[in-house]
C-alpha cells in the first residue's frame, strides 16, 4: 500500500466548493498516478475549471485537501504551487500582451523554479516555442497572436516552468482536426518524457484518445473513473452528455 501511495502524483481528498450557495464541486476525490495522462471529462458547467483553479491555488476549496507527491498543498499561494512543480495552461489564454512570445516563455523559465534558471534559458525558450508550433513567431507581441497561437504559447510557457504535473484546460476547443492531432501527439510525447498530465476537454474525442485513465464529472460530482472505454460505456455518462436525464422525464411533444 505504501509503495502505491508513493506513486501518486496528485491526490484530491473530498474537495467541495460552493459559489454563493451554488454547489460547484461536491466531495470530489481523485488520484492521478505518476507518469499518466489523466482525463477529466464532463459537460460545460460540470466543475472542471473550478477544480483546476483549486489545484493551482487560484480558488480556495471550502473543504478537502490537495496533496502533491504526498505533501499537503491545499492553501498554498499560486507561485509556491508553481515552484513545487505544477503548471497549467489556461482555457482562456492569459498572455502578457505587450511581451513577445519569447519573452512570455522566458518569464516561465526565470521564475518557474526556485533554483536559478539555466544560463541558456533563451535557447530553451526558443526550443519550447518550436515544439508547440510557434517557430517564426518568437518576436511577435503575444497580444497580437490569434487565439490558437495564444493557446500554444500558454502551453510553452507552462512547460518553461519545468513542471512535474501539467494541467491542460480545454485543450482542443476551437482547434481544427489537424491541430487536434498535433496536440494529441504533443501530449503523448510529454507523457513519454516522464511528465504527468491532467487534461480536460468537453470535446470527448481528444481526451478519450490520449488518456490512460478518465474521470467523468457532472454537476460537481464524480460519476465514474476508469479506462476511456469503461467510462464512455457508463450509462450515466451518456445521459450527462446527451441530456437524456431530462429527456427521460419529458412527455413526448408533438412535432
Amino acid at each position, binding site marked *: 500500500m505504501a509503495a502505491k501511495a508513493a506513486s501518486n502524483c496528485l491526490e484530491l481528498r473530498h474537495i467541495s466548493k460552493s459559489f454563493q450557495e451554488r454547489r460547484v464541486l461536491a466531495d470530489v476525490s481523485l488520484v492521478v498516478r505518476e507518469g499518466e495522462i489523466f482525463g477529466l471529462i464532463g459537460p460545460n458547467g460540470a466543475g472542471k475549471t473550478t477544480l483546476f483553479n483549486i489545484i493551482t491555488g*487560484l480558488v480556495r476549496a471550502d473543504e478537502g485537501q490537495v496533496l502533491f507527491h504526498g505533501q499537503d498543498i491545499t492553501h498554498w499561494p*499560486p507561485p509556491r504551487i508553481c515552484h513545487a512543480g505544477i503548471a497549467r495552461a489556461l482555457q482562456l489564454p492569459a498572455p*502578457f500582451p505587450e511581451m513577445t512570445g519569447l519573452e512570455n516563455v522566458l518569464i516561465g523559465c*526565470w521564475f518557474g523554479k526556485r533554483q536559478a534558471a539555466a544560463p541558456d534559458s533563451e535557447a530553451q525558450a526558443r526550443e519550447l516555442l518550436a515544439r508547440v508550433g510557434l517557430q517564426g513567431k518568437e518576436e511577435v507581441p503575444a497580444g497580437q497572436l490569434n487565439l490558437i497561437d495564444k493557446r500554444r504559447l500558454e502551453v510553452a510557457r507552462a512547460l*518553461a516552468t519545468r513542471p512535474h504535473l501539467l494541467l491542460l484546460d480545454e485543450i482542443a476547443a476551437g482547434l481544427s482536426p489537424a491541430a487536434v492531432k498535433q496536440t494529441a501527439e504533443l501530449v503523448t510525447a510529454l507523457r513519454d518524457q516522464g511528465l504527468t498530465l491532467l487534461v480536460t476537454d468537453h470535446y470527448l474525442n481528444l481526451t478519450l484518445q490520449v488518456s490512460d485513465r478518465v474521470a467523468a464529472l457532472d454537476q460537481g460530482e464524480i460519476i465514474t473513473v476508469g479506462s476511456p472505454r469503461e467510462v464512455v460505456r457508463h450509462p450515466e455518462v451518456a445521459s450527462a452528455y446527451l441530456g437524456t436525464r431530462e429527456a427521460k422525464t419529458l412527455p413526448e411533444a408533438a412535432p
Partner: protein
Amino acid sequence: MFRFRLSLVLPLAAALVLALWPLVWAEADLYFQVFGMACFYGVLAVAWNIYALSGAISLGHAAFFGLGAYGSALMSCYLQWSPAVTVPLGAVAGAAYGVLWGLLFKNLRGVYLGLATLASVEIPKVIIDNWSSFTFGSLGVVGIAPLPDLRLGGLELAFGTSLKAQYYLLLLFLALAGLVHRYSLVSRWGWALRAMRENETAAAMLGVEVFRHRLQALLLSSYLTGLCGALYAHLLGLIEPALVFSLHISALPLVLSIFGGRFLTWGPILGALILYPLDQLLLQPQFPTGHAALYGLVIVLTILFCPQGVAPWLRKLRQIAWN
C-alpha cells in the same frame, strides 16, 4: 547596430549637456533653480513610476513625500543632527508608510487601489496638522537647517546657499534615480514587475512572487519619495502640512511619468525636464497663481490622445529624421 548605439548616445549626450551648461553660463540663478527643481521632480516621477511598473496607479504619493519631509525636518529640529543624517533617516518615515500600504492594500487593484491611496494621504496630514505640540501643527516647521556645505580638496560646494551647487546635487540625484529606474525595467526583478503588470494571475501561476515583488517596488518607491520630501524640507527651509501633503505633490509625478512615457527608461525624466521648465519659465510669469493648471490639462490630454506619452512619439520622430 546604429540604432542601438543611438539609444545609448542620446541619453549620454543629454547628460553631458545638463552637466556642462552651467560652466559656460556662469550666472543664471533662475535657470539653476528651475532646472535643479526639474531634476528634483524627475526623481519624484521616477520614484512614483517604480510602483507604477508593478501595475498600480497611486494618487497618494504625497503621503510619503510629506512624511519624509516631516521626518527629516523634525529630526533636524529636535536633535540638531546634520541634514546629511536626517535626510536618509527621515525618509524612512515615508518607507514605513509604504510598507503599511503594501500590507493593508494587499488585495486592492486598479480603481480601488487608486482611491485608497488618495484617501490615505489625509491620515498623516490631519495627524500632523493637529499634533501641534510636536509637529507645530498647521503653522508648519520653520527655520529648517539648510543642506551642509561640502569641501572636496580645493572645491567648495555650498549646497545650502549656492543654487549652482544645488543644481549639481539634484542632477546627481536624478542620475542615480535614473539608474535605479533602468534597473527596475531591465533586470530580472523588472521583468517580474512587468509580468505582474501585464497579467497578474498568469504571473503568479508562472512562479512570480507577486506580493513580495510588489512590496519591494513599493518600498523602493516610497523611500525614494521620502528622500525627495526630506530634501525638499531642507532646500526650502520651511514646510507645512498643506504644502507637503497637497494634491499637487501626488499629481505631479503621475503627470510627468504619464506624459513622458511610463514604461520607458527615460520617460519620467523626460517628462520632468520638459514640463517643469515649461511651467516655471513660460507660464508662471504669466499666471503667478493657477499656472499649475497646466499639469491637470496635460494629464487629461495625454490620457485622451497619447496614452503612451510623448517618448514613443519622439522615437517615431527620430526614426523619420533618420530615414
